C-alpha cells in the first residue's frame, strides 16, 4: 500500500533528474528514506501487532526506494560501458530487482496479516505485552 504512495514520487524524481543538476533528488530521497526508516522503526516498536506489521511493511518498502535510489538517478552506475554514445541512462537492473522485491513483499505482508489475525484468534488480543505475557 505504501508502495504506491511512496513509489510514485520516486519515479517522477528519477525522470526529472536526467539533467545535470541531478544532485537535488538524491538529497530529497535521502531525507525521505531517513523519514521512512524512522517511521517504520517507530511502528515496529509499538505493542500493537497490526502497527508492527505496518512498520515492517514500511521498512521493506523503504528498502525498495533505497534500491531505486542506488541505481543512480543520473545513470551514474551503468552496468555496461556504453562508450558515451548513448548519453546517460538510468540503470534498468534496479527496477527489475525492486519488482522482485515488491512481489516477495506482497506475499510476506499478506502472510503477516493473516498471522496477526490468527494471533488475535488464539490470544484474544493484539497487544504484544499481553500476547507474550501468557
Amino acid at each position, binding site marked *: 500500500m505504501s508502495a504506491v504512495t511512496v513509489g510514485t514520487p520516486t519515479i517522477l524524481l528519477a525522470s526529472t533528474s536526467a539533467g545535470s543538476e541531478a544532485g537535488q533528488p538524491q538529497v530529497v530521497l535521502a531525507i525521505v528514506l531517513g523519514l521512512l526508516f524512522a517511521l517504520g522503526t517507530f511502528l*515496529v516498536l509499538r505493542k500493537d*501487532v497490526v502497527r*508492527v*506489521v505496518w512498520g*515492517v511493511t514500511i*521498512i*521493506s518498502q*523503504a*528498502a*525498495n526506494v*533505497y*534500491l531505486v*535510489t*542506488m*541505481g*543512480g538517478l543520473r545513470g551514474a*552506475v551503468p*552496468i*555496461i*560501458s556504453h562508450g558515451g554514445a548513448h548519453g546517460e541512462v538510468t540503470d534498468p*537492473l*534496479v527496477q527489475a*530487482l525492486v519488482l*522482485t*522485491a515488491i512481489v*516477495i513483499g506482497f*506475499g*510476506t505482508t499478506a*502472510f*503477516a496479516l493473516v*498471522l*496477526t489475525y*490468527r*494471533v488475535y484468534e*488464539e*490470544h484474544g488480543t493484539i497487544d504484544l505485552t499481553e*500476547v*507474550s505475557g*501468557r
Partner: protein
Amino acid sequence: MSEHVVVAPLVVALVTAILTLGTRRYPRGQRAVSLLGIGAYAVAVLALASRVVPLGVLTGSGGTTETLTYQVSNWPAPFGISLVADALSAFMLVLAVAVVVPALVFSALYVEEFAQRVSYHSLFHFMLAGVTGAFLTGDIFNLFVWFEVMLMPSYVLVVFYGRAEHTRAALQYTVLNLLGSAVMLVAIGGIYATVGTLNMADIARRLAHAGEFGIDPAPVLGLGAILFAVFALKAGIVPFQFWVPAAYRAAPAPIAAVMAGVTKKVGIYAIIRLLFTVFGTATVGGGLAPARIAEGLGFGMAGKSFLGLFGPVLFLMAIGSILLGGLGAVSRNDLDDILAYSSIGQVGFIVLALALAATGPQAVRTAGLIAALVYSLNHAIAKSALFLISGTVYEAVGSIRFDALGGLSTRRPILASSFFLGGIALVGIPPLTGFFGKLLVFDTAGKAIVAGEPFAGVALIVALAGAVLTIAYVSRAWNRAFWGSPSDPVTRSYQPTALVAVVAAFVLLVAVLGIGFDPVYRAAEAAAHAATDRTEYVEAVAPEVIG
C-alpha cells in the same frame, strides 16, 4: 558453459513441491510423490557432488575438484544469474541431503494425516528448494531471493500447529526475518551501487583490484557488515539468537531438525562465502576519503584486510554464543529447549573456528575452515537426530518435559541408546564425528597460538568451557529423561517402532562417518580450499566480459 547437473537438484525440489500440491486429494499418492522426490533430490545432489569432488579426491588416490557453473537462460555472467557448484556448495548440499531425507521419512510417519495432506509436503520441498538455491547461487540478489523462498515456507511451518504458543513464536520469527530481509536488500543495493555488479565472482574480482575499477572498498566493508548481520540472524549467533528457542519449540519435530541442521547452516555457508570467497582479498584502501577519516579518528583501518577486521567481531559473537548457549541449555527443563540452546552454543564453535580462520595466516585459515565444516556436518546430523528423538519421545510418552519423563532407558532401550549416541556425538567422544569436529577446532586454536594470533589463547579457554558445558547439559538431559525409575507416563508409553527405526538408523551416521572419517576430512579440505580459492571461482564463472 552450462552444466545442467548444477541446476538438477533445484529443479527436482521445485517440481516435487508443485507435484505434491497437485496430488493433495490422494494422500497416499502425495506421500509417495514426496518420498520419491526426496530420493530423486538425493540422487541429483550426489550426481552433482561426484562431478565436483570426484571419488578419487575422497579416497586420496588423486583427481582434482572442479567448479561447475550454470548460466540461467544462457545469459552470460555477470548479466545473467550464475549458479556455481564448487566443493563448498557440494559439501553443504550433501550435508542437507543427510538431514532432509531422514527428516522427511520421519515426517511421513509422524505428522498427522490431515496436516500432511493440507500443505506439509509442498512446504517442505519449497523450503528445500530455497536451501538448495542459496547453496548454489553465485549472485547476491539471487541469494536474497532464495533466502525468501526458504523463509516463507518456514514461517508457515513454525506456526504449523496453530495454537497460542505457536502463533506467538511464529509472529516473532516472521517479523524478525522480514526486518532481516529488508536490511539485506539495503545492503545488496548499496553493494551494487558501490561495486557495480551483483555477481559474486565479479564482486570478488573487482574488490581484489579495487583501484583499477575505481571502487572505494570502505563502504563495501560497512555494507558487508550489514549483510553479515543478516546471515548471523539466520544462523542464530549471539546477539541474534533470541528467536531460536521459541521457533524450534513451536515447529514440528522434523522441521525443528531441518531448521537446526540445514537452514542454520545456510547462514554459516553464506558467511563463509561472503567473507572468505567474496571479500577474501579485499582491503580497505588508504587513499580514499572514508578511510582517511577513520584514520584521523584513530581507527586506523587503512590497508587492513576485510577478513582481519571481521575476525574480532566473529570472535566476540562466537564466545557469546558458546557461553550463552551452554549456560542456557544447562538450566532448561524440556528436551526441545535444551536442544535449541545447545544449537546456539554449537554454532558458536563453528563461528569460533571461522574467527580464527579469518585472522590467521593461510595455514590456520584452511585448518579453521575445515574445522568449521566438519563441525557443521556433525552438528547437522547429531542435532537433527536429537530433535527427531525428542519428537519420538513426545509421540511415545506424550511429553518432553523432564518432570514427566525419567527411566526411558529401561522402557525404550533403542530410543535411549539413540539419544545417548547423538548426545555423546555433541560432547565429542571418539570415534564419532563430534570428536573430530572438536579436535579440529582445538587444533586450529593451537595452530593460531603458534602463529601468534592475539585471541587464540582465549579461544582455546572458551572452547574448553563450552565443551564442559556440553558435557553438563547432555548428561543432565540423560539423567533426567532416560535414567532413574520410570515415571507414570513413561510406564504407560507405547513403542512407535517405525519412528524409532528411522532415528536409530539416522543417528548411526555419526558413528559410521566418524569411523570412516578420512573421506569426510578430504571433502571438507576440498571445500575449504574452494572457499579460499577465489581465482578458480572467478575463472569458472568468467565474468570478464565487462571492462
